[in-house]
C-alpha cells in the first residue's frame, strides 16, 4: 500500500495562501533543498530528546523518592560526611 501511495505522488498545488503558492512555485531548487534541510534539522532533535527522556524514565522506573533519599542518607553515612547529609536533606524551594 505504501508503495502504491509512493507511486501515485502528484503535485499538490491548489488553493490556500496565494502568496505561499506563488513563492513556492517560483522557488529555485536551492530553496526546496533549504526547506528539506530545515525540516531535517527540526526532525532530529525531538527524536534525540524523546530518546533521552525515555532513557531517563526507564532508568528511574523503579526508583522512588523515599528509597532515593534513604540510599543517599546511607551513602552519606558510609562516607562519614555529615556535612553533605545535612545539606542534601535541606528543603527544596525553587
Amino acid at each position, binding site marked *: 500500500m505504501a508503495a502504491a501511495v509512493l507511486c501515485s505522488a502528484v503535485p499538490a498545488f491548489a488553493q490556500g495562501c496565494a502568496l505561499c503558492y506563488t513563492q513556492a512555485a517560483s522557488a529555485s531548487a536551492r*530553496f526546496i533543498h533549504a526547506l528539506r534541510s530545515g525540516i531535517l534539522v527540526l*526532525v532530529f532533535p525531538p527524536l534525540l530528546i524523546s530518546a533521552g527522556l525515555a532513557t531517563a524514565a526507564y532508568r528511574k522506573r523503579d526508583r522512588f523518592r523515599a528509597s532515593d533519599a534513604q540510599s543517599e542518607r546511607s551513602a552519606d553515612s558510609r562516607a562519614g560526611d555529615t556535612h553533605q547529609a545535612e545539606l542534601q536533606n535541606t528543603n527544596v524551594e525553587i
Partner: protein
Amino acid sequence: MSGQSSKGQTTTAQTHTGFLRTYLFSLDHKTIGKQYFLLSLCAVLVGVVFSWLMRIHLAWPSLSIPGLGWLSSTGAPQGVISPEYYLALMTMHGTLMVFFVLTLAPLAAFGNYFLPIQIGAEEMAFPRLNLLSFWITFLAFVVLISSLFVTGGSPISGWTAYPPLSAVGAIAGPGEGAGQTLWIVSIAIFCVASLLGSINFIATTLDLRCEGMTLMRMPMTVWAWFITSCMTLVAFSVLLPACWLLILDRIAGTSFFVPAGLVISDQLQPHSGGSPLLWQHLFWFFGHPEVYIAILPAMGIVSHVLIASMRRPMLSHKAIIYSMIAIGFLSYVLWGHHMFVSGMNPYSALVFSLPTLVITIPSTIITLIWIGSLYGSKLRITSASLFALGFISVFVSGGVSGFLLAQPSLDTYLHATYFVVGHFHLIMGVAAIFGIFAGTYFWFPKMTGRMMNEPLGKLHFWLTFVGSYCIFMPFYYLGLAGNVRRDSQFVSAAMQSLMPVHKFITIAALSTGAAQLVFLYNLAYSWRRGKSASSNPWDATSLEWSIPSPPAAVSFEGGAVIVSRDPYQYGMEGAHDFLGQREKAVADRATPAFATVKPAYAHPSYASISKTGMWVFIAASIMTFAALTSALLVRRGSAQDWQIFRLPLLLYFDTALLVCSSVILELARRSFPRFDPSNTRQARMAKVFLSITLLFGALFLGGQAAAWLQLRSQGLAFSDGPSSSFFYLLLEGQGAHVLVGLIAVAWVLDKLYRSQLRKPSLDTFSLYWHFTTTLWLYVLAILLITI
C-alpha cells in the same frame, strides 16, 4: 499546615496564612491547579461569547447586536459586525480556546492538582517555579485581552498568525498594529509559562514518585500528563523563537517572513526576501503537536473515569500507555501535512502523509480498547462516565474525517472549507472539552469536598452532546458543498443556498452555549451547598481517593506513602470490589500492613530533581536553537539577499575565554567533595576558581558586545540582511544564557562566602555552564558554515 520532612524541615505547602499567600500566591499545587481551572473558565466564557457573535453574524449579517458598538465602535458600528471585526473575533476565539482552554484546563489545571497526589508526592518538584508559571500565564491572558481595547482592536490574522499579514504592521488592516503585536507578545509569554510548567511536570513525575510507584503503576492520567509535558517542552520551545522572529519583522525591520517586492495599499514594503513558508514550517511544528497536547490529557482522564465507572481495568493498560507514547512520538514528524497546499515539494508531502496516516493506528488502538473494555461491563452511569462516553463518540466522529484530510489529493479540495472546521472542532475542541467535563464531574468531590448535582449533570451532558453534533456535523456537509471558511459573509448565489444550514448551526450554537449555564449553576451551587462528599465517593482505587475530600493542605499529612499494587484493582471478592493502591489485599492482612506504617515524609533528593530540571531546561534550549538553525537554513535558501561577511576575530578569543571558564569551573566542582568549609585554603581555592569563572564569563559577554559594535561600525546593522539578523540573534540568544549563568555564579559565590553552598547546587550550575559553553561552540560553528 504542617508537613515535616525526615529531618524536621517543613514541606513547602504549609505554614503560610493570610489571603495573599493562601489564595493568590500559594505554593500549594492544589491551589495553583484551581487557579488554572478558574483562568480556563474565564477564557472559555469569553471564547464562547466570541463564537456566538461570529455565528450570529454569519446567519444574519446585517443584524445589530446591542452593546457591541460600545466594545468596538470601528469594528462593529451600530452593533453590526464588519468583515474585519469578524476576523478579529475569529482570531481571539481560536487563540483563547487553543491556548487558554485546551492547553491549560486538562493539563495545567487537573495536572497540577492531581499529578503529585496520584504519585504520592506532597508537592511539585519546583513549587516556586509552579507559582511563577501560573502568574506568567495570567499575564499572557491579560496581554491578549488588552488587544481588544487598543487602537484598531484585536488582530485579524487568525490563531495561526500567518505572515505577511501578521508581520507588516498596521498597514495590513485594523488590528494588525498594536493588536497584533500584543497577540504575539502574549503567545511568547505563554510559551515561557508552558515551558516552566513542563519542566515541573517532568521532574515531578520522574523524581517524586512515592515508594512502590513504579512507572507502570502510575495511573493513566499521570502517563498522559507526563507525555503531554514532554510534547509541550518540544513544541513551545519552537514556537517561542518563531514569535521572536515575527516580532522582529514587525518592530526591527528584519525580513524573516515577509517576501521582497510586497506592495500593500500602493506602498512597497521595505523587506528583502523573507519566506512566509518559513512561518508555516515553524508554526506547524508547534501547531500539530498542540492538537495532541490538547487531546492526550483528555484521553488519560477519560480512561481513568471509565475504569472507575466500569469497575474493571481496561483490556490492556500497557497498550494504552504505549499508544499514547506512540502518539506523542509521531506527532513531531507530521507537521508538514498542514503545508500540503502551500506548494511544497510533492514528495515532501508524501513523507508527511504517511506518518499522518500511521498516527491513526495508536489512536485507533486506544479507541478499540475503550470500546472493547466497555463491552459487557456493568457501567455506572454518572455525569462523569457520560461525558467520557461522549468523548469517545466525538473523538471517533472527528477522527474519521482526519483520514480524508491526511490524503493530499482530498485535502487540496477540502483544505480551506468548513470540512476542516468540523474536523478540528470535533477532535480537538469538543472531545477535549468533554474530557474536561468528565474530569470536573469526577474530581469535583475531591477538590471541594462536595458532590455535584447528578441530575443536573446528566441534563448538561445530553444538551451538550446533542448540541455539539447539531453544530459540527453540518460543517462536514458545508465543506463538501464547497463552503469556504474564514469568510464573514456568503454573497454568491451558490453560498446563499447554504444559508439555512448556517442558521441551523447558529441556533444550535446559541442553545448549546446557553446549556452551559446549567453546568455553571451546578458548579457554583455545589461548591457552596452541594451534598458532602466522602473521601472516596466513586469507590475508586488511585491515591487521590485514599485521602480526605478536600485534601488537607499537606495532602498525605506528612506521612510516607507506600504503594503496593497497580492503579486499577477492581472486581475483587468481598464487601468492596476494589483495592486502593495503598491498601493491602485480604490475603496479606495478617502481615504488617502497609497502611499502618506511617514513617515521616521523606523529602526527595535535591540532587536528583535539580539535575532532572536542568536537563529538561537544556532540552528546551536545544529545541529553541534547533528552530533558529532551521529558520536560518530555510531563510538562507529562500532568496538572493544573503550577505556573506567576515566574523570578527574577537569571537575566537571569546571562545577561548568561555572554554577556559568551563575547565576552571570543572576544577572547582571536582574539588568540592573534598571541600571542608573550615579549611581556609580549600575555601580560598574554590572562591578563586569561581571568581575566575565569573570574570571570564563577564569578559566573554564584553567581547561579544565589542564584536557587535565592531560590525555595527562597519555598517552592518541588525536589519541589514538576513545573515546579519541571524548573526545578532544567535549571539543574543547565547549571550542571554551566559548572562543568566553569570547571575548564577554570583549566587553560588555568595553561598560559598556564607558557607552554605551545597554540592548539588554546584553540580547543577556546572551542568548549565558547560551547556552554555557547548552552545556557543555550536553557534560559532553554524555561523562559520553559513556566514
